[in-house]
């Protein structure tokens, strides 16, 4: 049996202490360095490039959520088997006269079969009495061996639905996790699920909702017949996930229920068939709503993701509400054209947030996002029709 370079939590804690002592001693200009921790962020990388990307996000997060980042680089296929760890302070560049605020990062690189031990090391290194967030980027978060081992201590699991390998199947796994995250029975805590793909849809939801903050236009929200959702594919890969989540969101908010044959597929185009409560024609009357999710052609270099969201009432008084990308410089055009009203168009700004910004927004949430849960459950029902 090979002797492994042994890294234990006490050694790492000792290194951290030495790091802060040195930082305090070398602080220049007499300015204090403030160590601040508001949460534990466990992030898993599967290679060094991913580790580098996560490290960059962790450093940027210090501005909004100074934290202890536990970066686990799990490389079970690599040799020779060994565990290495190192610590660093993640500091904000500070203005003169203002104390510097720093979080800290512990990186653990585990190669070979020993990577199975990494969870036990992480458990010993959590800063006490702070929320614990597990971030699993990549295509298969629910198959990650860290998840079952850390399930008992985490408050939030962060994934990115845009990266998932199997949108249809994965949506259902997300929904199943959200319904029952498998927290030990009797525990007061319930793990919240965060999806960075859902977070990226917030500006679209916001701009859509804004149309109906107007008193005369609000009634049209209950009269919609057709929704067209266009998205820019990720290279060759069709990923209708954002469209399905938006469809789930509308269905949850507006009480739309899927028909028995809820989904039809024509090439790359998905059609969702739902019914909505009818307005003003008796309590049991229903109307049909069609949601069409289709890829759109876009300029080379266009960012993947939602490109257009159009809500229409076609029966009776026509109403057409449209939110669409105006260019690739982060501008969105909104227009409302309703019979009897002047058309209202305006351009607004909607720069795609960086990964760190989306993470920061998720970490601001203290509880579960009930609207996400509702949208996710419905999106998963649509996804069931795709298989």
């Amino acid at each position, binding site marked *: 049996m090979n002797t492994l370079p042994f890294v234990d939590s006490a050694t790492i804690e000792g290194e951290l202490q030495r790091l802060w002592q040195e930082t305090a001693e070398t602080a220049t200009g007499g300015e204090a360095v403030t160590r601040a921790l508001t949460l534990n962020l466990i992030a898993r990388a599967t290679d060094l490039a991913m580790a580098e990307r996560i490290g960059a996000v962790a450093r940027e997060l210090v501005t909004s959520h100074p934290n202890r980042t536990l970066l686990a680089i799990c490389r079970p296929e690599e040799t020779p088997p060994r565990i290495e760890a190192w610590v660093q302070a993640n500091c904000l560049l500070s203005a003169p006269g203002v104390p510097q605020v720093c979080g800290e990062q512990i990186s653990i690189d585990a190669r070979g079969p020993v990577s199975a031990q990494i969870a036990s090391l992480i458990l010993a290194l959590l800063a006490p009495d702070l929320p614990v967030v597990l971030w699993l980027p990549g295509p298969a978060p629910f198959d990650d061996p860290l998840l079952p081992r850390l399930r008992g201590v985490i408050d939030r699991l962060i994934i990115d639905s845009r990266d998932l390998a199997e949108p249809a199947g994965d949506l259902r796994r997300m929904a199943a996790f959200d319904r029952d995250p498998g927290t030990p029975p009797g525990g007061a805590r319930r793990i919240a699920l965060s999806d960075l793909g859902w977070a990226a849809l917030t500006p679209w939801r916001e701009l859509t*909702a804004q149309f109906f903050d107007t*008193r005369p236009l609000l009634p049209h929200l209950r009269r919609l017949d057709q929704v067209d959702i266009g998205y820019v594919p990720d290279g060759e890969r069709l990923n209708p996930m954002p469209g399905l989540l938006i469809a789930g969101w509308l269905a949850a908010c507006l009480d739309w229920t899927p028909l028995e044959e809820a989904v039809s597929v024509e090439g790359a185009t998905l059609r969702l068939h739902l019914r909505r409560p009818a307005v003003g024609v008796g309590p049991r009357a229903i109307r049909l709503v069609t949601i069409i999710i289709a890829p759109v052609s876009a300029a080379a270099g266009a960012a993947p993701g939602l490109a257009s969201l159009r809500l229409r009432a076609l029966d009776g008084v026509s109403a057409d509400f449209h939110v669409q990308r105006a260019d690739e410089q982060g501008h969105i055009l909104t227009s409302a054209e309703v019979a009897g009203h002047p058309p209202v168009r305006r351009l607004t700004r909607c720069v795609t947030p960086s990964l760190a910004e989306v993470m920061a927004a998720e970490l601001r949430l203290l509880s579960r996002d009930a*609207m996400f849960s509702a949208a996710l459950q419905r999106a998963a029902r649509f996804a069931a029709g795709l298989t």
Partner: protein
Amino acid sequence: MSDSVATPLENPLRAGLRLWRTPEPCIVVIFGASGDLTSRKLVPALYNLARERRLPGGFSVVGFARREWDDAAFRQVLLEAVNANSRARPVEAALWASFAEGIFYHRASFDDPAGYARLAERLAAIDAARDTGGNRVFYLATPPEAYPEIVAQLGAHGLNRSPGGGWTRIIIEKPFGRDLESARDLNRRVLAVFDERQVYRIDHYLGKETVQNLLVFRFANGIFEPIWNRRYVDHAQITVAESLGVEDRGGYYDRAGALRDMIQNHLTQLLTLTAMEPPVAYDADAVRDEKVKVLRAIRPIAPAEVERLTVRGQYGPGSVSGRPMRGYRDERGVAPDSQTETYVALKFFIENWRWAGVPFYLRSGKALPRRVSEIAILFRRVPTLLFADTPVNEIEPNVLAIRIQPDEGITLKFSSKVPGQAQIRPVTMDFRYGTSFGVASPEAYERLLLDCMLGDSTLFTRRDEVEASWALLTPILEGWAAGPPQDFPNYEAGAWGPAAADAFIARDGRAWRRL
């Protein structure tokens, strides 16, 4: 309907955690559109709100002023103003083009009835073209002398009510009156035309994040409220210090002075938020009810007491931050023998169960060494000496300081042992907005304009509040007027006020905080 607060829209797409309500499309009519406030604060704030998707499509601005501009010229002026003053610079051309489509200029003088008749037609036309639904905000950004005329003209032309089920609100800038009588008179004139719930008296201090955080700090944390009273608090110091002189506002300032310009509004607001009881709900009337109770509980300073309970100052020549500054009496628009105070310190007692016997020291001045606003709660000292080498009066009392500007945050000072020695030294625990949340706080005007458009008047001053504050301060003005002339100037620009202010607090065995 004149206001929609009672029936907020129930937009089902707003359900959930993250979506903030946007106001209904409306027209903001700015009186005094060629003025400094419009260029420096109002239009940059509106542009930022539009840029951050907080305003609806159709949102429009109408500038009302006498200058000979047209829509294009006004848009150009505002573009330059936003480029110079917005926190998001430079302006994005495509965004500005879309925002500017909703900007219009209306040339008229404030006392010309025909100008208001044309304004009504213009607003109706904008409603029809941009679907603004008859919703209007009138913003009085003019010299206060023009307020009564504008309000009367709006009433005379039916502009106090909206056509077609929309709402109409009016924002009135400070100063709201110059004493109790004039404030009452202005209230009477305004309320003869508008309902109180349509009136938004603005004090931009209430739009600052830290000021709002004061209520969150007090009422969302369990550990501070139990000690927030006369048993534990020795006294409070509220400071609003400005390093600038009167700049080009000499003409206005010489008729106002620090008491009217700062104490009556900003410092009184800070005082009431610090001292108020928990409101029964976080809504406009519940919060303002409690603030008014504080004002009513303050023991008024009678004219005969002003020499004992207040200190006045006026700055002479000196230097601030390494730059020479001329004396107040040398400023443009200021009388050479001016008796106007540029510094005030005073002491209030709030006579209720929570605060009886606890002095609240307020001070504000111009040409002070630095610009800083803070509320400091100084707690009682420990009752007895336990550590042999440190006399009890050398152990500094605990201080909770809430900084409003610059560098918004909260600091708690407590005593700690020096490592390896038997000495005790004060250390501070610091919370800074900038470092804990990492996002730039929105400008106060952004928050307040948005609140007004949403029909939320919590952060605006109510009629009884403004009158209660004048009722407290008017006797001080009268006492000063009746007394002998002051030996002004009595502090150098760049000093922390007159020596008399230090003696004033020292008489109570206390000292001003070094800021």
